C-alpha cells in the first residue's frame, strides 16, 4: 500500500516535471560518459603509449565529476524545494490525519529513490549507446580503425554514476525533508502569501543598470586586450567585473522594463501590460537566477567553443609526413625495410640528413666559449636587421635575441627535405647557388611564424664565412622526423654540397624516415598499420620513433581537453536551460489565480497562451542575450590568447564548424523554449474557470 502510494506520487511527479526529469536523464548520460572516458578506444590505446598522462587524467576525472555533481545538486535541490512547496498542504494533511513524521520522511525518501531509479533505467542505456558511438567515431577519426574496438561498457562507471546520482538526490531531499518535517502541520496547511510586488526605487535600479553595463564593458575590454599574457590577477579581475556586472545588470533591468511598460502601455491594448508586468516581476524576483543561468550559459558557450577549438585546431594541422624515424646504419635499416614483410607496407624510405653546423660556441655576450677546429663563421645579422624593421613587440625582441646567437645552427640537407616534401605531395625546393631556406618546427605559434614570414618576404640573408647567402622568401615547417618531441627553433635547409662542407658530421644520416603506403593505411587504419609495422622491427634491435608517439601526445591533449570541456559545457547548458525553464513554469503555477481572473474578465485562452509564450521567449532571450553577447568577447579573447589556432588551419573549416555549432545551439535553445511553451500552454488550457469555485 505504502509503495503503491509512493510509485503513484513519483509517476505524477515525473509527468508534471517532464522538463526537470529529462534534464536528470541527460545528467546521467553525461555522468556515465565522463566516468567511462578511460574505457574509450582512444584512451585505451593512449594508455599503451602515454600511460603517465592518461593516469594523470584519470586522477582528474573524479574531481571533474565532483564539480558536476555539485552543480547538479543545486538543480535537484532547487526543483525539489519547489516540488515540496507545492505539496505542502498534502503533507500538512497527512500529518493532521495522524501520519507519523518518520513515515512521511520515509515516503519522501522512497519517492526520491524510485524517481532516481527510473531516470537511471532510462538514462544508462542511452549513455551506453552514446559512449559506444563516441568511442567508434573518435577511433575512426584518429585512424585507430575499428579492429581494436571493444564494447566500452564499464561497471565502475555505471556504479559511479548510480551512486553519485542517487547520493545527490538523497542529500538534497534529506536537507529539504528535514526542514519540512520540523514544521507544525498548521504551518504546512496554511498556504503562504503571494510574493509582494517589489518596487525597486527608480534611482537604485537605474544605478544598477548603468553600473552593470559599465562593469561588463570594462570586463570585455580588459578581456580582449589584456588577457593575452594570461596573468592570474587579470583573469580574476575580468571574472569579478563580468560576474558582478551581470548581476547588477539583471538587478537593474526590472526597473528599466517597468519604465518601458509605463511608457508604452497607455497606447496598447490586449494583454500587453499584463505580459510586460509579468516579465518585470519575473526579472525583479528572479534576477539572481537569471544572472546565474546567464553566467552558466556563458561558461557553457566558452567551454564548448574551447573544446571545439582544441579539437579542430589540432586536427587540422596533422599533416603526416613521416611514420617512422629509424636510427641505425644503412645495412641494418635497409635489411629490415627491404624484407618481404615490410616492403609491401612501405611507400618509400630515405635518409634524413640533419646536423649542426660546425662553429665555435659562443656565450650570451658573444664571447667565444669553446673554439672548434675548422669552425665556420655564421651570422644572422641580415635576418636580425629585417626583424628590426618589424613593429616592436616582446616576441620580436625575443626573436632578435635568439637570432643573435652565432653558435652552430641546425642544418638540413636539400635532398632530404625534398624527399620529405615529395612524400606529402608538395613541390620540392630549388636552392640556387648561394641560397638557403629557413626551417622551424614551431608552427603552432602563429605570431612567430608571421614575424619570420614578414622578415623573409622583405628579402634577407645570412652570412657564412663572410659570404652572403640569400634566404628564400618562404618559411618551411613540415615535420622532418616522426617524433614531435624534437623541436627546432630554427634550422637552415642548405644544398647537399654546403651540408657536406658545414655540418659537423655529414656522413651519417640523423635517421631514416619511413612512410607507409596509402593502401596499407586505408586497409588497416593508420594506427593499426603503424602497430603492425612495428612488429617487423621487433627483435632487430633498431632504435626508432613512430608517428604514434608524436601524435599520441598530441591526440591525448586534444581528446582529453575537448572531451572534458565539451562535457562540462553541455552540463552547464542543460542546467542553465532547465533552471530558466523551471523558474518560468514555477512562476506561472504560482500565478494560476491571475490567469483564472483574466479568463473571468473575458480573456481568450489562446491569447493567454500567446502571452505566456511571449513571456517565455523574453525570459529566455534576456538570459541568452547577455550570455551570447558576453560569449562573443570571451571566445574572442580566448582565441587570441591561449587558444591560437595554428597556422594552416583552414578558415572555411573553422567557419563551418562554428556555424554548425551555432545552429546546434540555436536548435537546442528552440527545443527548450518549445518544451516550456508546450508545458505552459497545457497548464493554461487545463485551467477551468470553475477551479475558482474550489479556490474560495
Amino acid at each position: 500500500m505504502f509503495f503503491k502510494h509512493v510509485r503513484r506520487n513519483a509517476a505524477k511527479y515525473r509527468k508534471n516535471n517532464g522538463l526537470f526529469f529529462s534534464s536528470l536523464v541527460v545528467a546521467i548520460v553525461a555522468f556515465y560518459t565522463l566516468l567511462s572516458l578511460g574505457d574509450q578506444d582512444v584512451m585505451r590505446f593512449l594508455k599503451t603509449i602515454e600511460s603517465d598522462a592518461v593516469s594523470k587524467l584519470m586522477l582528474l576525472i573524479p574531481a571533474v565529476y565532483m564539480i558536476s555533481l555539485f552543480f547538479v545538486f543545486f538543480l535537484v535541490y532547487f526543483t525539489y524545494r519547489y516540488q515540496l512547496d507545492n505539496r505542502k498542504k498534502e503533507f500538512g494533511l497527512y500529518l493532521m490525519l495522524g501520519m507519523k513524521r518518520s513515515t512521511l520522511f520515509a515516503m519522501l525518501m522512497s519517492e526520491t529513490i524510485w524517481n532516481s531509479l527510473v531516470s537511471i533505467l532510462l538514462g544508462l542505456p542511452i549513455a551506453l549507446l552514446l559512449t559506444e558511438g563516441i568511442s567508434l567515431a573518435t577511433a575512426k577519426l584518429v585512424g585507430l580503425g575499428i579492429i581494436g574496438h571493444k564494447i566500452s561498457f564499464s561497471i565502475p562507471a555505471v556504479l559511479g554514476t548510480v551512486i553519485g546520482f542517487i547520493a545527490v538526490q538523497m542529500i538534497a531531499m534529506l536537507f529539504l525533508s528535514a526542514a519540512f518535517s520540523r514544521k507544525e502541520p498548521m504551518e504546512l496547511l496554511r498556504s503562504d502569501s503571494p510574493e509582494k510586488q517589489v518596487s525597486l526605487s527608480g534611482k537604485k535600479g537605474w544605478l544598477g543598470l548603468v553600473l552593470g553595463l559599465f562593469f561588463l564593458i570594462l570586463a570585455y575590454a580588459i578581456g580582449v586586450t589584456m588577457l593575452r599574457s594570461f596573468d592570474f590577477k587579470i583573469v580574476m579581475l575580468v571574472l569579478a567585473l563580468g560576474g558582478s556586472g551581470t548581476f547588477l545588470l539583471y538587478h537593474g533591468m526590472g526597473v528599466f522594463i517597468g519604465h518601458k511598460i509605463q511608457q508604452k502601455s497607455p497606447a496598447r491594448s490586449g494583454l500587453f501590460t499584463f505580459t510586460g508586468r509579468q516579465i518585470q516581476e519575473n526579472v525583479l524576483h528572479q534576477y539572481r537566477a537569471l544572472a546565474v543561468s546567464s553566467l552558466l550559459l556563458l561558461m557553457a558557450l566558452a567551454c564548448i567553443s574551447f573544446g571545439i577549438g582544441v579539437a579542430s585546431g589540432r586536427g587540422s594541422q596533422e599533416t603526416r609526413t613521416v611514420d617512422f624515424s629509424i636510427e641505425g646504419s644503412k645495412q641494418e635499416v635497409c635489411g629490415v625495410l627491404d624484407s618481404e614483410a615490410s616492403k609491401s607496407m612501405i611507400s618509400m624510405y630515405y635518409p634524413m640528413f640533419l646536423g649542426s653546423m660546425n662553429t665555435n660556441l659562443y656565450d650570451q655576450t658573444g664571447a667565444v666559449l669553446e673554439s672548434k677546429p675548422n669552425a665556420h663563421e655564421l651570422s644572422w645579422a641580415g635576418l636580425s636587421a629585417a626583424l628590426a624593421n618589424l613593429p616592436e613587440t616582446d616576441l620580436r625582441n625575443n626573436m632578435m635575441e635568439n637570432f643573435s646567437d652565432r653558435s652552430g645552427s641546425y642544418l638540413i640537407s636539400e635532398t632530404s627535405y625534398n624527399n620529405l616534401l615529395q612524400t606529402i605531395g608538395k613541390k620540392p625546393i630549388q636552392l640556387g647557388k648561394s641560397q638557403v631556406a629557413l626551417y622551424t618546427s614551431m608552427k603552432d605559434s602563429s605570431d612567430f611564424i608571421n614575424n619570420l614570414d614578414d622578415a623573409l618576404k622583405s628579402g634577407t640573408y645570412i652570412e657564412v664565412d663572410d659570404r652572403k647567402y640569400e634566404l628564400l622568401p618562404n618559411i618551411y615547417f613540415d615535420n622532418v622526423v616522426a617524433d614531435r618531441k624534437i623541436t627546432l627553433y630554427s634550422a637552415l635547409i642548405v644544398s647537399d654540397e654546403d651540408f657536406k662542407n658545414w655540418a659537423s658530421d655529414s656522413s651519417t644520416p640523423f635517421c631514416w624516415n619511413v612512410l607507409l603506403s596509402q593502401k596499407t593505411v586505408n586497409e588497416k587504419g593508420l594506427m593499426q598499420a603503424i602497430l603492425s609495422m612495428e612488429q617487423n622491427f621487433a627483435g632487430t634491435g633498431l632504435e626508432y620513433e613512430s608517428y604514434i608517439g608524436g601524435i599520441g601526445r598530441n591526440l591525448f591533449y586534444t581528446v582529453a581537453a575537448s572531451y572534458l570541456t565539451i562535457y562540462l559545457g553541455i552540463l552547464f547548458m542543460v542546467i542553465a536551460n532547465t533552471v530558466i525553464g523551471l523558474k518560468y513554469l514555477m512562476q506561472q503555477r504560482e500565478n494560476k489565480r491571475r490567469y483564472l481572473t483574466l479568463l473571468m474578465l473575458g480573456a481568450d485562452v489562446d491569447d493567454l497562451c500567446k502571452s505566456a509564450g511571449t513571456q517565455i521567449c523574453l525570459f529566455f532571450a534576456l538570459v541568452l542575450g547577455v550570455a551570447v553577447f558576453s560569449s562573443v568577447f570571451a571566445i574572442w579573447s580566448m582565441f587570441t590568447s591561449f587558444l591560437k589556432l595554428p597556422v594552416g588551419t583552414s578558415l572555411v573549416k573553422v567557419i563551418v564548424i562554428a556555424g554548425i555549432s551555432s545552429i546546434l545551439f540555436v536548435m537546442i535553445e528552440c527545443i527548450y523554449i518549445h518544451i516550456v511553451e508546450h508545458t505552459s500552454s497545457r497548464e493554461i488550457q487545463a485551467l477551468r474557470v470553475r477551479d475558482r469555485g474550489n479556490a474560495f
Partner: protein
Amino acid sequence: MNLDRVLQVESVTKVYGKGDNKTEALRGISFDVLEGEFLGIMGASGSGKTTLLNCIATMIKPSSGRILLKGSDISSFRGTQLADYRGKEIGYLFQEFELLDNLTARENIILPLSLHGVTGKQAGGELQELASRMDIVDVLNKFPSQMSGGQKQRVAAARALISKPSIVLADEPTGALDSKNSKVLLDKLYAINKEQQKTIVMVTHDANAASYCSRILFIQDGRLFHELRKNVKTETRDSFYERIVTAIAQLGGGSANVL
C-alpha cells in the same frame, strides 16, 4: 423603473460529481432579474449561492435549465462570444478581490477593456470618472500590495464596472472587509445602482449588506423558497433590515445563525 428583464434563470439545476459522490447543488431555480434592480441572494452555507452565481457568470455549466441574458441563451456562447460575454456583459466582484498583484490599480481597472482592444488612452476619461466615484484616484498608480483592503475592493468594483456591463455579479463582496469599509463599498454600489440604473446581483450572508438591496431571494438546499421586496418609495433601510432579520429568524428556524 423600467421593467425589462435583463436576466432570466429558468429551472436551472446543477449536480456535482457522479454516482455516490453526487451533490445536487441546485435543484431547479427560476427567477428573473429586472433592469436596474439591486438583487440580494441569501441562504445557508452550502445552499448553492456561489454555484448559482457561477452558472450565471459561465464559470460553470448548469446541468439543466437555461440562463438568458437579454434574451439570448448564454450556454450557447462559444469562443469570442463567450469571452465578450465575460468581459463586456457581466462584471464580477469577488470576495477576495482577485486583483492581479503585479499590475497597478489603473492597469487592473482597464484590464477588461484592454482585453477587448481598447487602449489605456482611450479609456482614460471613463477611468477618471469611475476612480473619483469610487474614491481611489490616489491609489491609481499603486500596486495592490500597497493598498488597503477597502481600496482593493473598490478598485475591483471599478474593474467590474468599467466595461459598462449589463449586470454586475458580486459574491460576498464585503466578506473580507471590516464594517466601515463594507459600508463605504455598499454606499458606492447603492449609488451606482440608483444613479445609473446598473443591475446588481449580490450574494451575502450579512443582513446589513442585504438591506441595501431592493429585493432579496432566499435559497435553501438549491431551491428558491422565499422572497423579500423592499418598498422602494416608503421603506427606510433600517426597517428593511429589521424585516430581513425577522425573515431569517423565521425561515431559517434553528439554522438561522448559519446564514
